[in-house]
């Protein structure tokens, strides 16, 4: 079983692209948290998380995004998720987290 | 009767020197081969700790031979960073899980007496002894 998650950060001024690939579950979520949370503490930063190559995410992953969102509000940064695969998007819809986290509404691949 | 001798630990090679001196002292006072090997292993652990974490320090041997005890006392002393959480370092599995060897719990097992005094940013002194049976 693939339990790896790759995290790549591309900085363009205040825009921070975090490109993820792999699976986000109880094993890899701590790594994501470690990478994502410090970015949300930069005031004025605009963080774009690209989930195009994330084929699985469980509720632990949602938890990381919730704490990241709380942190952006505290520190004056922004968080946006883009290119979600259907299964991942469904998780955000069921939990209604798409109503509080900014999620790119374009279908995967269309950008 | 007391006689004290020390080995300075500055490089990895000095670990061997400390083992050798410790083993000679142990043989002198009458430890058998198994206990000699145990004492040498304990010295290795103490000396390697100094070499890895403090950089330099020394290991001293005192032969104790009075009415109550007959044995070898080993004191490992350094002026290194000290141990922040001694209880954690003394816990089984703490150093072995990182593949660093038997660690301080190992030394405690090999010897009959064991005590650590450590202050952060000042250094560490470990006193340990084994008695001839």
């Amino acid at each position, binding site marked *: *079983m693939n339990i790896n998650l790759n995290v790549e950060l591309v900085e363009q001024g205040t825009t921070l692209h975090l490109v993820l690939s792999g699976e986000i579950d*109880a094993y890899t979520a701590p790594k994501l*948290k470690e990478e994502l949370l410090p970015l949300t503490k930069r005031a004025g930063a605009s963080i774009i998380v690209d989930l195009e190559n994330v084929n699985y995410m*469980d*509720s*632990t992953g*949602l*938890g*990381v995004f*919730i*704490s990241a*969102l*709380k*942190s952006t509000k505290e520190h004056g940064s922004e968080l946006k998720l883009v290119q979600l695969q259907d*299964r991942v998007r469904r998780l955000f819809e*069921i*939990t*209604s*987290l798409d*109503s*509080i986290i900014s999620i790119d509404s374009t279908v995967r691949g269309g950008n | 009767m007391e006689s004290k001798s020390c080995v300075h630990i500055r490089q990895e090679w000095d670990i061997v020197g400390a083992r050798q001196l410790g083993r000679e002292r142990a043989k002198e006072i009458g430890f*058998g*081969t*198994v206990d000699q*090997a*145990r004492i*040498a*292993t304990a010295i290795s652990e103490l000396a390697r700790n100094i070499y890895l974490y403090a950089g330099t320090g020394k290991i001293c041997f005192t032969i104790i031979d009075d009415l109550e005890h007959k044995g070898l006392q080993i004191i490992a002393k350094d002026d290194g960073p000290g141990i922040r959480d001694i209880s954690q370092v003394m816990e*089984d*599995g703490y150093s*072995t899980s990182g593949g660093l*060897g*038997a660690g301080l*719990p*190992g030394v405690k*097992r*090999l010897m009959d007496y064991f005590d650590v005094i450590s202050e952060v940013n000042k250094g560490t002194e470990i006193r340990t002894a084994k008695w001839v*049976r």
Partner: protein
Amino acid sequence: METIRLDLENYRNLLKEYLVTKDETALYRAEQFSKLSMQHNVSPEEIVHVHIEALKELYPDLPEAVDDSLNFLLEAMISYGLAYQEFTTLRQKQSELKSEISVAARMQETLLSTVKPDIRGLEIGAISVAANQMSGDYYHFVADKDDDTLGIAIADVIGKGIPAALAMSMIKYSMDSFPESQRNPSAILENLNRVVERNVDPSMFITMFYGLYNPNNETFSYASAGHEPGFYYHSRKNEFEEIEARGLVLGATEQAKYKQYERKIKKDDCIILLTDGVTECRLGDRFIERDEILEVIQTYIDLPAQEAVEQVYKHFERLQDFHFRDDFTLIIIRKNV
């Protein structure tokens, strides 16, 4: 030293016997010697030592190189001896921890236990199985004797194991402390959301579905806090319909509002509630789709409700090689009048 001396005698005889006969019996005795040594915490270097001593007694003119090489082996065994002793201590600690956790698990079971109530015209089946010793799933029934209504809560805490179980106990106690007049699904979720938001780690959240059935007007009112959608089973058409209810998970923001929905329940129809341990069943690299789950439920839906949930559980248990990755909870409520 006394016992080792005694053992030396024994060992020397065994060794002698073996050197003369090359017999399997002596080797078998050596095995027993080794087991006995372990029972008495005799370390490997001591056995090597006993071997050297026995050999020297049997062969007084042992070549020096052999003697030295055996001493070399003794040195090499010291660290193995230490590792073995450490292992023994850790194993003991592990069993202490295990029994502590099972005490906690039994406490949780008592704390969260719920009784399936007898409600006029309803048949209830419920099963909840933890992936580990402690569960992060929870379901609870509240029957009101005055007006015959039934409250049903089903919830899932993010993650599993002990942290999830602790959070669940908190939820249960908050619910118990709400006034009895407070039975409105949307109001209950709004109150719980505030409790969770204030009291748990920012990355922790809980999903919950809360429903209230009133047999007097045969109405089921409900609200959902981001919980895995359940199903309404139309018995006449033999069809499942997803129960739609939108609402944010508990603990994500301080002020969350929950929309309350209502529907009439017809005779023989069912309400099916579950946690994502059911829908997140994995088969190797593949997930079981919701349609497949419905097929399984459909197979057993005509059984009495309790039997049906148990059969569905057994089906998925078998499918996943009897090892669930997540807590599993399934409730079926059938209206039979």
